[in-house]
């Protein structure tokens, strides 16, 4: 009996010592933990993986410069949301249940961001989306929700106001894939286009959805061909875009093909074949390879050095941007309190030089000023900004 008591005493002592020493160690510059929520598995796993890499590179860059808040390092905690709403809610809870997570970079898909941002809001944690572009997201009056990516209506407006006049197009065909992002972009485009349609300047001759994941789109395309469009805007993703371009050309659609920002990348060219892909256009958020500001150059060098390639989509770089603004907000405001960070982001951050250029946020949490450009696939398979 005595021995048990003794053992108990010793173990309590050891435990107490251990805890206190941990406490001492923790006091000595604990890392600032930032959560990253993204699709590590599932259909959008590629994006999640790139986001993880980009954010880690950005963290590495900040840490190499000596961290924030006087030498505290940044640590990234990744939670997988598989691009599904339920898994997204779980991932948000996973990050929130770790008390040392200061803020979260969340997340890629719009339909996942919706429940996740509600949860973050409830727990009062700043969360910055990097791929969720659906217009309505920021219009819900959330206090802690921001995004470094643009909104679909900016892109839609760009297409309606810049691209359509550029090609002197009168007859516009728009096709989407009935998923959150794609439908949003298509609808926002029509919204901006509406005054011109009413004025009789342009005509919306085709507006319909295809089912993603199929292979044969000749049937809807034949229907589209009969409307005889000048310009054909496809707002869906690259696997379908590649098929659609080829099948459209095969059945004799000659209209200018413009893809949304998810439509065109290297895989698009592979699927469509270069002879079909060349001369296709894309309204695109800023692609990292065309940036020349010092922050972007540094990021590109670090990324190249580690992975020998560049992120192929803009979204992962926006995730890195999110980390940069968070680090800046925490560092400048000197606090890891959510209210302070949110206040700093919303009211005090202006033209902060981040990787994709200067960043500020407006009243509802949208990024001020994102550059959308018209890219074109060149005959050799490379991308270029049209007109440059």
């Amino acid at each position, binding site marked *: 009996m005595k021995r048990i008591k003794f053992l108990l005493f010793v173990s309590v002592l050891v435990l107490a010592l251990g805890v206190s020493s941990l406490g001492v160690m923790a006091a000595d510059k604990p890392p600032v933990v930032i959560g990253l929520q993204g699709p590590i598995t599932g*259909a959008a*796993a*590629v994006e999640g993986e790139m986001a993880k890499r980009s954010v880690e590179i950005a963290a590495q860059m900040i840490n190499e410069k000596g961290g924030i808040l006087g030498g505290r390092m940044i640590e990234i905690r990744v939670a997988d949301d598989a691009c599904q709403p339920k898994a997204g809610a779980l991932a948000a809870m996973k990050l929130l249940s770790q008390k040392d997570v200061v803020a979260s970079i969340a997340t890629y898909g719009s339909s996942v961001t919706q429940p996740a941002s509600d949860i973050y809001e409830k727990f009062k944690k700043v969360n910055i989306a990097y791929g969720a572009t659906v217009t309505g997201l920021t219009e819900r009056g959330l206090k802690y929700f921001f995004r470094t990516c643009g909104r679909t209506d900016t892109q839609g407006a760009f297409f309606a106001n810049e691209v359509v006049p550029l090609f002197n197009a009168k007859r516009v065909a728009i096709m989407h894939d*009935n998923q959150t992002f794609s439908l949003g972009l298509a609808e926002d485009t029509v919204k901006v286009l509406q005054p011109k349609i009413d004025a009789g300047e342009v005509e919306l001759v085709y507006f*319909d*959805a*295809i*089912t993603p*994941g*199929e*292979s*044969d789109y*000749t*049937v*809807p395309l*034949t*229907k589209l061909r*009969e409307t005889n469009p000048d310009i054909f805007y496809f707002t869906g993703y690259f*696997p379908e875009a*590649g*098929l659609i371009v*080829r*099948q459209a050309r*095969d*059945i*004799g659609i000659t209209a200018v093909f413009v893809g949304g920002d998810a439509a065109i990348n290297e*895989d698009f060219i*592979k*699927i*469509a*074949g*270069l*002879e079909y892909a060349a001369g296709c256009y894309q309204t695109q958020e800023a692609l990292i390879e065309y940036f020349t500001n010092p922050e972007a150059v540094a990021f590109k060098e670090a990324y190249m050095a580690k992975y020998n390639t560049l992120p192929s989509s803009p979204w992962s770089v926006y995730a890195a941007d999110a980390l940069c603004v968070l680090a800046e907000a925490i560092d400048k405001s000197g606090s890891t309190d959510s209210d302070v960070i949110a206040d700093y982001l919303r009211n005090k951050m202006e033209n902060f030089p981040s990787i994709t250029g200067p960043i500020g946020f407006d009243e509802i949490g949208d990024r001020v000023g994102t550059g959308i450009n018209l890219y074109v696939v060149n005959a050799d398979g490379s991308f270029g900004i049209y007109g440059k």
Partner: protein
Amino acid sequence: MKIILEQLLNGLTIGSFYALIALGYSMVYGVMKLINFAHGDLFALGSYLGYTLLVFGSTYATVTFGIWGGMIAAMLIAAIGIGIAGTLIERIAYRPIYSVGRLPAVVSALGASIVIQNGIMVVWGPRPQAYPANVVPSTVLNVAGMRITLMQVIILLISFMLMGLLYYIIQKTTFGAAIRACALDRDTAALMGINIETIIFFIFALGPALGGMSGVMVGMYYRKISFIMGWNYGLKAFTATILGGIGNIPGAMLGGLLLGVLEMLGSTYLSTAYKDVFVFLVLILVLIFRPRGLLGEKVAEKV
């Protein structure tokens, strides 16, 4: 009119893929009374097998057999590969549980489907892959003002040839009679001296082989293949099988072609977004009035 004909041809092309895959479902179901949920994924695996062959062996194949020869070679090799994969799945996932009833086999089949699908993802990656461009001639024929691709014609030809061949085997040969006997009553067939093992081996090789071949054709025609395509095609082909009457070989062919045409009609005259709703509604209506599919025999339950 021209448009309708052109669309009809488009519908038939999709339908012939469905029909080829549906044959696999129907043959397995006919004899085993089992829905081989992994069949769609075997089709996808066939597509990837063909892809790998064409990417790494395209120059060799094209030099040896000519451009069309290379294609045929890829199809044959994929067919053999998937035939083997089909029998392997039967051995591993189905054979140990035949005796305990049908439902465990459904779970096992779903498991096999998940394994194949994710196996493809692990091996070939989650991104969609594209068939090499040089084996796919994209000649467009102009027939009476209609634009038809050469590939489309070839696919229809090959599909109908394969279907005809299968129909001949099942309906006209002794071996086919044995298969039909097994489908009617496996125990009696066994008593009559039919080797059930051989029959099972044959249907689990031939069904997936047809699926594998159509996988290669889908790859060559559309170029894009992805690891989840098995689910899409599988579900549609299964629908086609039921539409025609499961276990019925001509029914599967009819169901597949009809489904393709129905999809075409749905997306042309309704909306593309409601196409699948339309297809499933037609299916349900058909089943309400013909509970065993279009060509399914009316079986009075023996009491």
